[in-house]
């Protein structure tokens, strides 16, 4: 009789383990999908930023020297997104730094607003820089949540993550120009 109890207990344990594993696999699947979408969102925000910077540069809002530097770094960022000759994070960080230098403080931003043909352009620029920062934060948060699950022993031993590569965070300087975000 005790044997039957043991078998029953083992079956129950297996069932619970199976349920746990299937839930964890589903959880990993969701987390990987979240990383995909957040990475995609970050990509589209970065592309939007370099495109807008090119627009702003060609609008003649900035002085010629700033225009050249802005256009150069925006082109470099776009090129880096297509082929990985220059690390993309580096190219995007460069663009960030040039933007910070171009609009270092509120007085500079106010001066630009006065001469701008279309003052909403600076608001758009602020928006896109803030969204780049947010998207990167959300992406890295998704990566962190996924890594937490993938580090669990059962997940590693049973290879629940399959062949999905180890998720990587995106490292870059994403500070929005202080002249635009200060209130």
């Amino acid at each position, binding site marked *: 009789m005790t044997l039957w109890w043991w078998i029953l207990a083992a079956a129950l344990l297996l069932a619970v383990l199976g349920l746990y594993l299937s*839930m964890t696999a589903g959880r990993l699947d*969701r987390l990987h999908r979240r990383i995909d*979408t957040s990475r995609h*969102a970050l990509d*589209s925000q970065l592309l939007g930023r370099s495109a807008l910077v090119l627009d702003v540069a060609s609008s003649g809002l900035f002085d010629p020297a700033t225009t050249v530097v802005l256009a150069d770094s925006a082109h470099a960022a776009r090129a880096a997104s297509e082929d990985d000759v220059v690390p993309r994070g580096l190219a995007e960080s460069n663009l960030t730094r040039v933007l910070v230098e171009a609009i270092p403080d509120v007085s500079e931003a106010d001066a630009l607003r006065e001469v701008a043909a279309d003052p909403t352009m600076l608001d758009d620029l602020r928006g896109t820089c*803030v*969204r780049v920062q947010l998207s990167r934060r*959300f992406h890295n*948060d998704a990566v962190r*949540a996924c890594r937490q699950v993938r580090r669990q022993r059962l997940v590693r031993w049973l290879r629940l993550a399959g062949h999905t590569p180890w998720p990587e965070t995106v490292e870059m300087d994403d500070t929005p120009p202080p002249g635009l975000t200060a209130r």
Partner: protein
Amino acid sequence: MRIGIVCPYAWDVPGGVQAHIRDQAETLIDMGHAVSVITPVEDPATLPAYAVDGGRPRPVPYNGSVARLTFGVKATARVRRWIREGDFDVLHVHEPLAPSLGVLACWAARGPIVATVHSSQERSRVLITGYYLAQTALEKISALIAVSEHARRTIVDHLGGDAVLIPNGVRVDHYLGAEPLRTWPGPAIGFLGRMDEPRKGLAILLAAFAGVRARMPTATLVLIGPGDADEVLSGVPADVREGIVILGRVGEGEKARALASLDAYVAPNTGGESFGIVLLEAMAAGAPVVASDLDAFARVLDGGRCGVLFPVGDSAALESTLLAVLDDPDARRRLTAAGVRRVAAYDWRTVAGDLIDVYASVTAGQSGVREDLRGQIVGRLARRRELGGDDAS
């Protein structure tokens, strides 16, 4: 943008989270977005046009007090139908750690989900007892927002994630240029908050007011807010009591007008205040602010440039501060002007702009919020039940 907002607490019970959601929804609608709020509610007839009935709240003991929450198969079915029919671009869940509609919505939906954490609990029971289930729901959230630094710490400490800080807002347009409620016989000092809650510090203000009244016999103290006033005022001498006017609990509009009639608004709080939204309301209504130097208050008052700070709990210091402010009309005008400028950064329109940036960051390249039917027994049951109901009708 089509935005679905989930409120965890009963709509017709006054509360900070509910007020936040109401202001958020109305501001976003003003800005031209399509907004739907699902919320527990006692009496569905009280719901505004943009809100959907999420079921009756039930009082349950939770996290050390009795909370009125909504859950169960029926509530799940309502949330699912709302998500299916709403066709939202983004779902915004408030207080995702409360076992109410928020968690249900996280389970029932997939796609871009944004969540705001309001409370700053030291320990959350959900995270300890239902850690696995809560974690599964939380992992679906693409972006976490905290309304205060305290709330952000809760997230960092308990969830291991990070959150974007987007502070609470004020509907500045509701307060700006409010018509003073009435004229008072002399200089008027105001207090707003629960009168019998010691941390609101009414006792400190009463002690200071006795001194003020000795020097300015026409000074009036206006008390706004709920609570039993008799008990608090029992120790006050009769001649001081004559200068005290109790307005009690008032509506939004009357609150703005009462604040506009003041020569000084006093926030004598001794602690427990994480943000200080009332200070912003008083500033928007044009009342000069005198507040205890709590971190949160000092931050809102820009280190004392937009209001006067006094040491926490020091009624003698409050008394001399009040006398100085009431004696100096120029200083009051300066404080009012600085306050109105300051409050613009906290206007709900600014806050809503920040929210839209967050929504845009999570929705890029996604097709919107869909119903999630994977691996959820309760969800499947709810769906069957609901289909049965549809057949019957």
